[in-house]
């Protein structure tokens, strides 16, 4: 402890002399899963390679499948489509003009005419021009036509979330906007193994799916990913750590922040936390979450998106209605602040482990 303090003081003093400013790290540690042995042979992959793997499997097995968006042909700005154009040809892996509304509309047209359409939006922050196509068209396509038509074969992928320096327009998590739209599905994976299985399930699901990939995990998250073609069921939450005192719900990278908080709570407070990955935001697995809260009596939901009207509000609302008499304390939401995602202030903005730990303290001493 003393040596840590000394080291920090020395580093700071040295940095000041060298005029070097500290760049805070992303503040979490990725925790790899062990792959299901039933799925057989595995290969080490990071998250973007897991995306490529899933797309490769679909392109190989489904002759109608096409992958398109800005810059996907050369491999994509996050390398998710590397090698696919060479392997499957320009007519199947192609660039579109720079227009998200065009990409989404084009994808809907492809899907309704019988092709498997996998669209890429370069950053979730740029999805809004496509909002009309997704909300007014894709989401309502089957319903409004009396099931004569549908665009279920559309999947639209986009990188989301904080990356350390992304600020307003390279850090957003817009899941709440889409969660409010009946007819869409919204899926957010936490790891390479999850990404491959959930993306394959999303592409094959016969409803339009918005698939958000936490970009900070693209390179950083590495796991032994099964080589096989496997799917992970949509609308099923996963209890990734069992516990008895507090239910924690999150998705994407925030789960790793909470992993550490679980350890801190155990070590410092003697509190046992149950950690749930929601995985699918819409339609979400209410049963798994409510069952957990009825057991623990306490709920904490955490996401990077702003607090007001973020998806935590939906989870908390439902839980208080279903588990009211089991609650020992008000539910806690630890989220981004109600501001645009800032640049230099990111360390103060994100729901870090200290804020989450404080919330655990609060709800266990209520």
């Amino acid at each position, binding site marked *: 402890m003393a040596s840590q303090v000394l080291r920090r003081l020395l580093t700071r003093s040295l940095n000041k002399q060298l005029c070097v400013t500290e760049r805070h790290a992303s503040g979490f540690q990725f925790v790899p899963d062990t792959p299901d042995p039933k799925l057989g042979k595995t290969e080490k992959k990071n998250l973007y390679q897991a995306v490529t793997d899933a797309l490769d499997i679909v392109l190989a097995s489904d002759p109608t499948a096409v992958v398109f968006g800005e810059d996907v042909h050369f491999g994509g700005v996050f390398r998710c489509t590397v090698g696919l154009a060479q392997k499957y040809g320009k007519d199947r892996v192609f660039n579109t003009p720079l227009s998200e509304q065009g990409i989404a509309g084009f994808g809907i047209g492809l899907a309704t005419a019988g*092709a498997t359409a996998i669209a890429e939006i370069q950053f979730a922050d740029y999805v809004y021009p496509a909002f009309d196509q997704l909300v007014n068209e894709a989401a309502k396509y089957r319903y409004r036509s009396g099931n004569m038509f549908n665009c279920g074969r559309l999947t639209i992928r986009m990188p989301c979330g904080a990356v350390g320096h992304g600020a307003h327009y390279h850090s957003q998590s817009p899941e709440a906007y889409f969660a409010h739209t009946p007819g869409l599905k919204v899926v957010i994976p936490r790891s390479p193994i999850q990404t491959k299985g959930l993306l394959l399930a999303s592409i094959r699901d016969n409803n339009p799916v918005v698939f958000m990939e936490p970009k900070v995990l693209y390179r950083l998250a590495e796991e032994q990913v099964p080589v096989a073609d496997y799917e992970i069921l949509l609308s099923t939450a996963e209890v990734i750590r069992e516990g008895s005192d507090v239910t924690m719900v999150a998705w994407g990278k925030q789960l790793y922040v909470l992993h550490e908080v679980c350890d801190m709570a155990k070590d410092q407070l003697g509190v046992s936390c149950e950690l749930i990955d929601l995985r699918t935001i819409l339609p979400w697995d209410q049963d798994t979450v409510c069952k957990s809260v009825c057991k623990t009596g306490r709920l904490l939901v955490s996401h990077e998106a702003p607090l007001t009207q973020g998806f935590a509000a939906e989870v908390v609302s439902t839980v208080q209605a279903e588990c009211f008499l089991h609650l020992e304390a008000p539910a806690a939401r630890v989220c981004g602040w109600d501001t645009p995602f800032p640049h230099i202030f990111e360390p103060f903005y994100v729901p870090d482990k200290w804020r989450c730990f404080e919330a655990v303290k609060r709800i266990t001493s209520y």
Partner: protein
Amino acid sequence: AKKVSFCSMFRIRSFSGRFRPLWFVCSRFVSSRSLASGVKGEQSLYPGSRLSYSSDVDECKPKPPGKLPDEGVSAFRILDSGGHVIDAKQDPNIPEEQLVKMYQTMVLLNTTDKILNESQRQGRISFYMTSDGEEATHIGSAAALDSNDLIFGQYRETGVLLWRGFTLFEMINQCYGNHLDGGKGRQMPVHYGSDHLNFQTISSPLGTQMPQAPGAAYALKRAGTGNCVVCYFGDGAASEGDAHAGLNFAATLDCPVIFFCRNNGFAISTPTEEQYRGDGIVSRGPGYGIESVRVDGNDMLAVYSVTKAAREVCVRENRPFLIEAMTYRIGHHSTSDDSSAYRSTDDVNYWDKQHPIKNAYNYLLSRGIWSESQDKEFKQEQKKLVMDTLREAERQLKPSVKELFRDVYDEMPPHIERQWNEVQQHVAAYADQYPANFDHDHES
């Protein structure tokens, strides 16, 4: 003077990756004598276009220069205002039987429109939109297509559906939202769709179909069906961002899609002078690299002719085509509109005299394949048919309330199932407060 060498026939790849004749790659290093004289100069290798340099700034502006020209692109017509063929060489030689069917379909549409419009005024249906004055744009184009060509409409293309075989019963059931409505009572009247007739269900947001159509065309191209997609839209919808996106995607991705603009002069109350400053919609095509043509939309034969030609190009060469059909919206925008608030009845009356149905009628008469007495009888028949169908549709039950909850997804998820159960219990407890003419659920 241009430098031409024996190498001009050899095409070599320049550093920008484009094939260029050798002579002009060499000419990059030639003196700029031609530039000083203001004559079109050396070729440029900027990757964004094929272009030369010039010292004359007027040569550097696309025509027309910055303001509305005195006269725009001409509109193609085959029939004059009296319904006579102007140039026999242009006659598309449509078989007589088909000509009569085309005319009859236009009459059926116009007759149905009048009656359904009236039925909204009587409170029998909630809303309606007529196609008065634009019938030739529908039937002329629809008759030139293959029945497997996929259609994306805006909302004023009912004649296209009727041509393909949409029955009056299907149409009026949709307007009433009864249990026989293919759309299951979910949308406002005139939001038709038909999977077996390859006509995508109409949605209210304008222009959204415009990037969807090239997407569908791309899928059809890859599937090798030999069909094209036709995307109808109006002069107002052409201002939407989706219109720009759709045209650009269709061109860059080589999609076999016909963009068919019904320029009827109005977007509700907004006249075209307030919608755009350039020469209508046809002038935009070249900006996207799309072959475009303007046609007299009130001339059934001309519309047929340009659509047929466009279709051949689309399907053979896998590239889009833009047709702008000039016409006039004789009716109001919808039953929620009273156009006397923003235009003179003189204008409306003028265009009623130029009505496409009158035009086609005169043509058929001149060909001796239709008569005044046949016309009278036919119109009476159609009126009776529409009235009978209206009465039949009116007495049908509405769909089961479970249809409110179905088809949000391919399968009903638990949270929606819970809400359906809640509604059932609620309506059972408050039955008198809710409409009773809804069918019970047949599937469970």
